[in-house]
């Protein structure tokens, strides 16, 4: 008589390495960016040259700085370097900061300052023939009409005074408050109001003198990329 034997499934053999999972070769253990409770804590960390503070600054402000730089310059060439330069300047000048409330304006001001320098540099390079006009980065790079409008728009902005141009972009494109624009441009609110008024008038003249802009901006059916 034979006893029925229940079949035992054969388990594949496990090596001793499989006993405890190990990280893949070449992997790195990274700390997550530290969250700061408020900006004063962030500034204190920047003053101490704390790497975690630098990382937090980058995560918090790199996007804002990048956006402002591209909108002011109308180009994304070298913008990553400019973002980095802006944030390094912020870190270097952090010990001199008094008003914590104005930290955002301070960061924007540094970015605007570097953007102005970059515009001047590019103007000179273009003047001596070392720099070609660059295309404005667009959300839809295949939209020819948007590319043409962007090109004409930034050509008009190029003809404006540097401070008026930056104030114009900060106020109307970025939607900054007058006080914030004034702080970023390092002048009084009254001055920035005058500059903006002049910038508006100048922009209007430039639009009137440019058929592409005149047609596009006076046409209520202008198609705004991304607005649809």
């Amino acid at each position: 008589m034979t006893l029925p034997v229940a079949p035992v499934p054969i388990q594949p053999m496990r090596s001793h390495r499989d006993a405890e999972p190990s990280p893949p070769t070449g992997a790195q253990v990274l700390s997550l960016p530290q969250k700061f409770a408020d900006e004063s804590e962030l500034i204190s960390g920047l003053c101490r040259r704390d790497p975690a503070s630098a990382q937090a600054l980058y995560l918090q402000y790199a996007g804002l700085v990048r956006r402002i730089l591209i909108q002011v310059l109308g180009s994304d060439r070298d913008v990553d370097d400019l973002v980095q330069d802006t944030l390094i300047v912020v870190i270097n000048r952090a010990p001199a900061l008094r008003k914590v409330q104005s930290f955002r304006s301070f960061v924007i001001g540094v970015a605007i300052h570097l953007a102005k320098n970059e515009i001047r540099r590019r103007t000179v390079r273009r003047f001596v023939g070392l720099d070609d006009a660059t295309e404005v980065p667009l959300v839809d790079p295949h939209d020819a009409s948007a590319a043409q409008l962007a090109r004409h728009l930034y050509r008009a902005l190029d003809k404006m005074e540097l401070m008026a141009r930056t104030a114009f972009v900060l106020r109307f494109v970025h939607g900054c408050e007058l006080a914030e624009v004034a702080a970023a441009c390092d002048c009084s609110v009254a001055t920035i109001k005058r500059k903006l008024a002049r910038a508006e008038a100048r922009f209007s003249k430039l639009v009137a003198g440019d058929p592409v802009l005149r047609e596009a901006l006076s046409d209520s059916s202008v198609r705004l990329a991304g607005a649809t």
Partner: protein
Amino acid sequence: MTSDKLGLEIGLAAEFIRSSVATGSSQHPLAHIRFSEQVAAHAVRRARRRNFAAASAACLIAIGAVCGTTALQPKALTFRVDNSATPGTLDSYVSAPAQAPLELRFSEGSHVVLQPLSRGRVSQTSTRGATMVLEDGRAHAEIVHRDDSEWRVLAGPFVVGVTGTSFDVAFDVATQTFVLKMQSGKVRVTGPGLSEPVEVRGDQRLVLSAKGTEPLKPLAAVPPPAIPPVSGTQAPEASCDTANAAGPPATPAAVGSTHRANSPQDAESFGQLGARGQHQRIIELAEKHGFDAAVAASNRADLLALGNAARFAGRANLAGMAYRAVRDRFGKSSEATTAAFFLGRMSESARPAQAISWYECYVAEAPTGVWVAEALGRRMAILNDSSGGPAAQTAAKEYLERFPSGPYAGFARKILTP
């Protein structure tokens, strides 16, 4: 254009930029970590740059300091002869014409005026002074005062060390006579016969002879002036002739240069005291040992110093005694000649006729002496005051012929003006 339209244009443009311009990026998930590493690297670079900048600044400062020091390094004095455009040359002779003086202007402000017919040269210049050689004649020097001044005037064998002063210096090659007349400041004189430098200051005068033991040249004879009796003693009739005959051979005569071991003032001679301006001390010493004894024991330089000290102290009798002793005992010496001039000075107010005689005696004995202009001028003034007329006019003409720009020239012209 209305504000609504303007606002619409700007609004549309802003909206276009906001919505159509791509501002996002495919940001690396570890970008923030890379950024913190960049910040650390930047800090290192910044510190390195700062050190480099500090080192560069230090180098620049050092270079600037070296350049500045070199640029500010004082340069040797230069000089110009009579406002000429080109700088004067070292060791080249300059000679003043007979009609006018010749001026040497030095770059630090000093100037030396060579009187007519005088000649000299600038032998050396340095950052702190110059060496001027007066070969013959007279010169007036105005030396700018500096603490580290190295100015020297060589007149014959005598050296006048100057730190900043104004003086007249003369050297007569013929008589080998050195005369220094101070106007301000002080100088130190060294030369043969002077065991140590003699300091001359204030308005002192120093007369030295470089002839060694040779007797001075015979002097021309003039009618002897009458010597007034002094303090009850019968003064001998002193004359140029008798005085010349009476004196012993001249020694290297110098004010303060000789010292007699057996003199009453063993420690210091009258001449030395006089050179330092200690006239009161001379009088005290002379009175201590007895004036007559002091006069008898003193050499010609000491006698002249004694006479000067007594004159300065208002002791006219004692001064006259000393001066007459110089003339009696050392008649051929320059001190005796000088004594004649001072005897004339002392006689002016009381006995003008004697003063005239003494002045004439002095001029005859020392035709190129330092007091000649003074003697002729004073003689002319006395003649004008006493007799006036042709005698004074003759004296004035004589004065103007010899010293057309002398101190009494204006007075002489006034006499000659009808």
